[in-house]
């Protein structure tokens, strides 16, 4: 009733992952070591059945049921551990095929009211519907897709109206400072010492450079492309940070390498 070809070698099937199907033999025999690829290749029993029918001209009725069942049971055994649901789907399909086959074998008493009912009809309907959707999915994937095939343009808006975040202008900061200084004058709580802004900016930068490092060689804190003025300001920033106890400068021996580390990193180490 069927022609079992047992001589199929597992190698060619297993190694061409992209197009393994060419090697799947007609009798459904899948070498066990290729099973994983096999399971990845098909979305489920419907997909497999569709493939067998389309690719190998297999008539639903001609599927060797005993063979198929044995095979499916073997897969189910292997899938049971981690793909229980999928195993169930294959089982269900096997049961359905066997049911169809057995009904086809029985004499079909025609009644006057009922059109000749082909037990395959429902399965065929499902296969066709699935095939149609499968094709549609491929076509859908061929449509141009935002981000994959083109980029959407959303230009920066000078004032961020999209997110409705408050926008400020440098004048706002200026006003804020004046307000603070005015209050400070009145309160006389403390002195606000003046310092060039560039040193403060470089202080932040040095701390950023130290972040995540246990220690950094002193010279590495200076950009090779820095101008003289930048070197001076960076140096001042390091001294100021040391004065404010924000970093530690150490030298193991005279004229040796100088190391700099952020103090919180040193003390928590």
């Amino acid at each position, binding site marked *: 009733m069927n022609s079992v070809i047992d001589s199929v070698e597992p190698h060619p099937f297993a190694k061409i*992952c*992209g*197009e393994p*199907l060419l090697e799947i033999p007609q009798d459904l025999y899948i070498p066990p070591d290729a099973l994983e690829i096999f399971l*990845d*290749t098909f*979305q*489920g*029993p*419907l*997909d497999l059945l*569709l*493939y067998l*029918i*389309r690719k190998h*001209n297999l*008539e*639903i009725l001609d599927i060797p049921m005993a063979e198929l069942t044995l095979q499916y049971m073997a897969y189910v055994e292997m899938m049971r551990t981690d793909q229980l*649901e*999928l195993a169930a*789907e294959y089982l269900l*399909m096997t049961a359905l095929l066997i049911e169809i086959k057995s009904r086809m074998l029985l004499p079909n008493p025609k009644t006057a009211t009922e059109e000749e009912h*082909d037990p*395959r009809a429902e399965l*065929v309907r*499902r*296969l*066709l519907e*699935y*095939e*149609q*959707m*499968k*094709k*549609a*999915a*491929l*076509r*859908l*994937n061929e*449509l*141009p*897709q*935002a*981000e*994959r*095939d*083109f*980029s*959407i*343009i*959303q*230009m*920066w808006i000078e*004032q961020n109206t*999209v997110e409705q975040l408050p*926008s400020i*202008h*440098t*004048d706002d900061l200026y006003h804020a400072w004046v307000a603070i200084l005015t209050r400070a004058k009145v309160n006389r709580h403390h002195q606000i010492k003046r310092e060039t802004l560039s040193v403060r900016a470089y202080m932040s930068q040095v701390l950023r450079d130290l972040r995540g490092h246990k220690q950094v060689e002193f010279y590495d804190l200076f950009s090779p492309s820095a101008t003289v003025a930048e070197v001076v300001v960076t140096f001042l920033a390091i001294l100021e940070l040391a004065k404010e106890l924000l970093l530690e400068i150490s030298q193991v021996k005279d004229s040796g390498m100088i190391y700099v580390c952020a103090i919180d990193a040193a003390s928590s180490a």
Partner: protein
Amino acid sequence: MSAPLMPLHQPDPLDSLSLAKTRQILEAALLAAQDPLPISELKKLFHNEISAAVLSKLLEEIREKWSDSGVELVTVASGWRFQTKAAMQPYLDRLTPQKVPRYSRAVLETLAIIAYRQPVTRGDIEEIRGVGVSSSVLRTLIARGWIEAVGHRNVPGKPELFATTQHFLDDLNLRSLEELPPLEEMKSLIESSDKNQGLPFEEPEESGH
């Protein structure tokens, strides 16, 4: 030092707006917009004092002006928007080395079923595909903003009904669901084998994932 930005610029009274200025404003608004802008929205730029017909004509002029650049003005479901031409994408991809993920067959098939059969429940999708649909598949599509729950079917368990969104159409450059590729008629699986003929189909491609 930049110029102060906020309160200086007052919109011109409309009658003094030249067509060129109008075109300039339209262009800036479309370039800056987060989402596609329909004509009804674009009219607001001019306090609804410019007709849709005039705006359409100006939009066509803008589209024409951009036609030989790397960027194009297109209409999608939610309106007009600027996007880069597909020919630019290989270059732009060099700036973002992590590739946009391709969707698995499970995701694509689920999407196709929702697009063509909507609204559908998860059970409907499973029925068609013949396998379970994992939650991660639906989550992927929801996270992308392509599908959404639009209601519940009145059966036990009240399963959610899923449909595609306008954003899905926008992202696929479509104006409506009718622009989706038409469904192919599948050849019968029974007759041809009854006649013992070979089946005239190509093998369904196994693009894997």
